[in-house]
């Protein structure tokens, strides 16, 4: 019985955490208070449910208990700033008894609050992971390579900002929505990137992070079915995710995209990604994620024996460069150029980026440079670029791959 209750509580936590936080914090804007109250409600469930059975509507049960805890907490801090207003909101919240045992979904508003322009960009993705998915600060800190105490502090500060600055937890109106949506998508993609950066998948919590970012992407795509960029981001993440098993061979060595065994790609995920991209392209406008998803789609043609469509990829990166002015897009454009027009053209494009300080410590820039120099026979310069790429790489398998690539260039026979 107790095990069953614990499982039910865990399932409710997994399914409804963000929904409950969003609903509890919607009016009070007190995300930290909602988190505290909800964790107390979960603790209460673990003692109550084994004794009285799992309630028919676990979410509504948790919400009722959490609401009571929030009201108690607010009464205790009665003298604090804005207490009267806060109590008023909570009274409304309490009066707002649910007729249906279904908690209304206000997560979208919470996502927009987490990515509000007033919130420092670097903390937006961490804040989403905590408020919507319930990740603890230590796990988030590891993923984003920040000291746990620092991450905890940044999250506390961001939540205080939401409450004190009165950041709304409502979904912005249509005109502002598109503008603010970019920040939401960017934070979700940042979370995905950090999860993806654990290619060995050895860190279960981290692997989970990429999955959870996709889950957020699905949430956004389902709540905003006509926003091409929301669909585009999900398509992009699914395309990349479909290849996760092919990034390492059986010995654990790194396998670059061009050499991946396409049989190891997840066909169902690619199909889903392609369908999303088609839908995205029917929506208004043009955007970064749709373009990036299209690049991945051009790589995915290899799975049916096709050849990577480098001409299309070059054009897509052209568009991305114009749209975003991102040095990473320019770097990728140079790599595509090397495929369509040869290494010299690619190198010339890389040279044009050499003075961009944002790329000075960026490993892929040096790896691309090394590769193209090696291809054009400039071995000494290639070795230097390889060394720089190796020195900047975090992942031991990629480091080893680059070392072997450099060694193979020097001794082609060995």
């Amino acid at each position: 019985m107790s095990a069953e209750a614990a499982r039910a509580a865990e399932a409710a936590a997994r399914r409804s955490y963000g929904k409950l936080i969003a609903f509890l914090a919607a009016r009070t804007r007190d995300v930290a208070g909602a988190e505290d109250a909800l964790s107390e409600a979960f603790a209460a469930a673990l003692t109550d449910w084994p004794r009285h059975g799992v309630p028919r509507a676990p979410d509504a049960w948790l919400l009722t208990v959490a609401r009571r805890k929030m009201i108690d907490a607010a009464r205790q801090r009665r003298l604090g700033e804005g207490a009267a207003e806060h109590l008023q909101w909570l009274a409304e919240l309490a009066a707002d008894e649910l007729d249906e045992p279904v908690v209304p979904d206000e997560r979208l508003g919470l996502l927009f609050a987490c990515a509000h322009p007033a919130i420092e960009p670097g903390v937006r993705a961490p804040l989403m992971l905590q408020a919507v998915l319930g990740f603890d600060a230590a796990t988030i800190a590891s993923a984003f390579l920040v000291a746990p105490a620092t991450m905890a502090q940044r999250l506390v500060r961001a939540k205080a900002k939401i409450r004190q600055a009165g950041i709304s937890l409502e979904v912005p109106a249509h005109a502002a929505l598109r503008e603010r949506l970019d920040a939401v998508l960017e934070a979700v993609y940042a979370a995905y990137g950090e999860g993806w950066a654990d290619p060995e998948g050895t860190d279960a919590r981290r692997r989970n992070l990429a999955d959870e970012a996709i889950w957020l992407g699905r949430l956004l795509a389902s709540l905003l079915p006509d926003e091409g960029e929301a669909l585009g981001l999900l398509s992009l993440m699914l395309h990349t995710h479909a290849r996760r098993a092919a990034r390492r061979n059986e010995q654990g060595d790194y396998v670059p995209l061009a050499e991946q065994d396409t049989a190891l790609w997840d066909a169902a995920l690619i199909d889903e990604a392609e369908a999303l991209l088609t839908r995205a392209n029917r929506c208004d406008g043009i955007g970064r994620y749709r373009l990036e998803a299209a690049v991945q789609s051009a790589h995915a043609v290899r799975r049916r024996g096709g050849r990577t469509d480098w001409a299309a990829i070059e054009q897509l990166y052209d568009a991305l460069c114009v749209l975003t002015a991102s040095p990473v897009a320019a770097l990728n454009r140079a790599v595509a150029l090397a495929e369509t027009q040869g290494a010299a053209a690619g190198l010339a494009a890389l040279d044009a980026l050499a003075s961009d300080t944002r790329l000075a410590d960026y490993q892929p820039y040096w790896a691309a440079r090394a590769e193209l120099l090696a291809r054009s026979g400039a071995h000494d310069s290639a070795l230097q670029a390889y060394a720089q790429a190796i020195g900047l790489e975090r992942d031991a398998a990629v480091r080893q791959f680059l070392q072997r690539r450099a060694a193979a260039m020097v001794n082609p026979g060995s």
Partner: protein
Amino acid sequence: MEYMLLVYSDSQAFEALSESQKSEGLAAYGAYHTALEKAGVLRHSNRLRPADMATTVRLQSGKTQVHNGPFAETREQLGGYFLIDVADLDAALSWAARCPGASHGTVEVRPIWAMGAR
């Protein structure tokens, strides 16, 4: 701000590697060293002879005590350090993650506490 990146690793595991693995490992450290230099953040760095080369000294009740071996017997021992000067802890952690020691051992990041500073 200055930070010391202290690399702890199992020197016996290193000794157990093949010659080519060893030289690959050392070359990775060389590349890391050069990348730190190029970024203009490296103050100083060195590796240390294995912990069984260590001798510890302390005075107890006015008498010197000299021991063979390291201060603490643990599997992972201090094997080297990088003293770097970067903007903040985030930047120091980002360099620590690139250190080959973070893959095969542990990199401890400690802020320098200058004499006279509070």
